[in-house]
């Protein structure tokens, strides 16, 4: 085994290199720490801690473009990979089409589940630019929302898909 392919814990920490929201970084992650906790500890507070058992989807992040549960991914697993949180999608002044659509459709109530839900939606639209309602519901089936009935979120994803398709045509 090549040493390049092995990282050793030093004083309870692993030094990993990764890209977070497009920015290459070196992070020290605690031994036994999951990606959710590591990201929050380093300031990405949009990654929410809900159930911590992989049931609610509040901790969803994109790992190499795929939505995963931050609470089930050992932080060291992100070594050499690209992580995207909602902070990497858009800003208050320049929101992503999905963020705009969620606000416009009234899909946000308490907002706790929304970062995860938007990231799952982003991965869906990247893979399927014009999804059916069934595809949207399937893509969001791991993101629980206790405020709404999911109707507005599905509507928001449909609207965002249309808007993004319009941008691509323009």
């Amino acid at each position: 085994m090549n040493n390049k392919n092995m990282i050793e814990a030093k004083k309870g920490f692993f030094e990993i290199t990764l890209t977070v929201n497009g920015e290459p970084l070196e992070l020290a992650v605690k031994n036994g720490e999951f990606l959710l906790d590591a990201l929050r500890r380093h300031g990405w507070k949009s990654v929410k801690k809900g159930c911590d058992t992989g049931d609610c989807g509040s901790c969803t992040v994109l790992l190499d473009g795929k939505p995963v549960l931050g609470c089930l991914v050992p932080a060291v697993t992100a070594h050499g990979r690209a992580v995207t949180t909602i902070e990497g999608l858009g800003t208050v002044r320049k929101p992503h089409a999905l963020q705009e659509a969620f606000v416009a459709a009234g899909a946000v109530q308490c907002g706790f589940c929304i970062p995860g839900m938007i990231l799952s939606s982003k991965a869906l639209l990247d893979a399927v630019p014009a999804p059916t309602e069934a595809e949207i519901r399937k893509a969001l089936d791991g993101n629980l929302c206790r405020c709404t009935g999911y109707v507005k979120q599905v509507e928001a994803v449909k609207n965002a898909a249309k808007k993004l398709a319009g941008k691509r045509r323009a």
Partner: protein
Amino acid sequence: MKNIKYYAFPSTAKEAVALLLNKKYKAMALAGGTLVAKTLPDTVETYLDIRNVPIKGIKLQGGNLVIGAGATFDEIDRSKLCRSWAGGVLSAAAAKCSSQLIRNMATIGGNIARPHSFNIFPVVLLGLDAKVRLAVRSGAKLTDLPGLYAASLGLRPGLDSLITEIIIPAKTRKWRCEFIKLAKTESSWESYIKLFFSLEKKGRAVQSRICVGALSPKPFRALSTEAAIAAGAAPQDCAAAFAAELEAARAGEYRSAAASSLLRRFLEAVK
């Protein structure tokens, strides 16, 4: 997971097995991690990330369907090959696993590495007569599902060997199959019962597979029921035989009644 001293990411199965067998490292392989990341034994000191090991593809090989152990439930759900094989039962079963976020992470290899009542693929692969290829100290080893869970195998996948491929034989390609998960909610990992039915008829039944999961860590074939089907018994008689077999396996009244009704419906639907 706090006892982890090393984190390794081998690039070949041979390298991974060498690490697993090296007593210095006390290594364990983790694929998707959805089942074991939170419950890693304290004795494990090296976390073996096998994402770079080339065991992910889904392909046809010699007429057989070969699924890499690293294929995720989502990949199996979306695979055209899996959707066209045995009536799409593999994809349908993969889609019944928990939520999309779990399906993005969980792998078929991880799902069968340890016998567990609620795992989906052991039941399906038992019904499809699948073989499992393992990378071991001496090279490779091929076994079937019962063999994988038998003590006589003498291996503990993920601790001293690595599952690399699942081979589904060509004969099952056109089989009519059905996978049923009875659970509190669609996304529940826990389930009351998991069933795999398969039947081929040419006038009379030429083959059948009736497999049951969620009653014990290892899935089992309902052999008396299969014998009743082979003997040409009427669907309600096969269902009665199945209920009796499930009761003998201590399935309980609800599960026996529900499962036997589902079998009767399946048999009646196969002309």
